[in-house]
């Protein structure tokens, strides 16, 4: 698993060497391979633009596989110590000020995370898209001075947060540089734009990503990855509910 990113490089080389356009499935599989890892520990911060100014929320995350993640908020002081735990399709939030663990479910999943342009639903989403969407190549464009495939994804199931997505995937690095997410009605719900990419441990990823909830007239959230370590050993208790009140 540690050398999964080599598969991405090899796949990219194979796609390029074949001299013909790959199909959407192959591109999406390459994107998924680029994202996937056994585990990762990261620190990041979000700069959330509101109508009255901006605020910064910092957090540390531990992620194992695709289904388990634990997040502890570090800043601002009011949010310090708030924790979130995702196990499979369940999500809990712990608030030290009330010593309460709240299960986030139902309509609460559509709420904004810390006032950002991301929703809890976005956090709950399986990052591996190939199992959820049918991709079709729509064309080629240049984004961030990088040649990209333009993929249109259609949901395989009805219960996904986004019914369709259009994404611009770096042809060589298989990083999603831009994405538009749509509702079943075709209405644009969210956009993401990568403004900075970085190569870490041999894999390319978006380091600075701008999220925009298209239903909000103003604002936007810049998500910045500060540090990220892949395939780190993470203690088992980090992915248990006990971590929340620890």
């Amino acid at each position, binding site marked *: 698993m540690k050398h999964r990113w080599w598969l991405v490089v090899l796949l990219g080389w194979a796609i390029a060497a074949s001299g013909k356009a790959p199909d959407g499935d192959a591109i999406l599989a390459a994107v998924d391979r680029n994202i996937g890892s056994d585990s990762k520990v990261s620190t990041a911060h979000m700069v*959330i633009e*509101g*109508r*009255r100014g901006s*605020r910064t*929320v910092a957090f540390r995350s531990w992620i194992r596989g695709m289904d388990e993640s634990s997040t502890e908020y570090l800043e601002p002081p*009011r*949010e310090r110590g708030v924790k979130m735990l995702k196990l499979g399709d369940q999500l809990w*939030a712990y*608030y030290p*000020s*009330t*010593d*309460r*663990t*709240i*299960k986030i479910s139902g309509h*609460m999943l559509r*709420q*904004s995370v*810390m*006032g*950002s342009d991301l929703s809890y639903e976005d956090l709950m989403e399986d990052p591996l898209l190939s199992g959820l969407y049918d991709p079709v190549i729509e064309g080629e464009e240049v984004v961030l001075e990088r040649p990209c495939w333009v993929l249109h994804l259609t949901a395989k199931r009805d219960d996904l947060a986004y019914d369709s997505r259009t994404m611009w995937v770096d042809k060589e690095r298989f990083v999603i540089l831009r994405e538009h997410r749509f509702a079943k009605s075709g209405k644009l719900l969210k956009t993401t734009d990568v403004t900075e990419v970085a190569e870490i441990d041999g894999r390319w990823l978006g380091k600075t990503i701008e999220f925009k909830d298209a239903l909000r007239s103003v604002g936007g959230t810049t998500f910045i990855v500060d540090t990220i370590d892949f395939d780190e050993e993470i203690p088992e208790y980090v992915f248990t509910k006990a971590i929340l009140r620890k």
Partner: protein
Amino acid sequence: MIRFLIKGLLRDRSRSLFPTLTVVVGTALTVVMYSWIRGTEADIIRANANFNTGHVRVMTRAYTAEVDRTPNDLALLGADELLDELEQRFPDFDWVSRIRFGGLLDIPNATGETRAQAPVTGLAVQLLGEGSIEREVLNLDNALVQGGLPAAPGEIVVSDELATRLELELGETATLISSTMYGSMATTNFTVVGTVEFGVAALDRGAILADLEDVRFALDMNDAAGEILGFLAGGIYDEERTARAADEFNAWIGDGGDEFSPVMGNLRAQSGLATTLDLAGAVSFALITIFVVVMSIVLWNAGLIGALRRYGEMGLRLALGEPKGHIYRTLILESVTIGLIGSVIGTSIGIACAWYLQEKGINIEPFLKNASMMIFNVMRARVTTTSLFIGFVPGLLATILGTSISGLGIYRRQTSQLTKELEA
């Protein structure tokens, strides 16, 4: 002469009973309907003023534009300073800051897990400390069903219906799950110390009432308020004074192109009440007009029938040399007598019915299950000075009008034909 006419009316009931009954019924209906409309209008104004808009309300321009979704991210900042300014500049009003919020009320079990949960509509008002008029404005002492009102920070009261639904005991901890004004999810523990019933379905479904400072802390709204409400002394809404105050305030603040600058509006200009109030006025006017017209037609018709029946009498009186004008005037005098008697009886009955509706009211709660409008469950009539003459005057006028038209037939009688007519 009048005594003679009254005797005639009493002895010949066929010429007085039907017109009198018509006037009685019409007058009574008008009084009841008018009082009912006035009562309903006053209740809507009172409910909206007390629980929603105040007599005037100050919000940011941005908040005003999206007021239906209670956008606390667009709330007034520096609210305490603005409140002081309003108190100095508009001393006729009592000013209060409020925060409206939504969220979930989560009741934990012994292990801290969710035992029960329900969506709530929250209202934060100044409950603690001196000098607040909120207890009186919200009629909290009468609204209290169980327990007491918050007396210390961290205490809330909830609607009795909500407490029953959540099987909530007094003294239990309830966690409010809501959003800060910056959009983060926020949880705050409160102790439930009482339950209330406001008699407004929109609130009684799931309201919680907390102290302003507690909610400011909970929602990260330090020195902020969603809205500042102004109430005229005596609690009576005055359209002109409130509109004048709003104009003065808005001229003083100016626009400045800032969406967060405060703007004042009076009750009528908010919550779609202008339409409701205009409608109530129009219905009152239409009611009285229709009443006068219909009653005049009915009484005119009654007069024509009476004239046919009294054809011989009129002819005989003319034959005896009584001038047409005198006969006409006696008919008018008769109608004035009928109008007076009918209007007095009708107004008395109407006032009695309206008084009953004012005291007892009619419970319309079953029709308000999903209503979001601030309206009391029990609608009441309101007996005012106007109720005394709103039916009386038209009752009298309609009778006179009806007789005036039908009585004109007297002038068409030919004296030369009288003997023939009387023989026939």
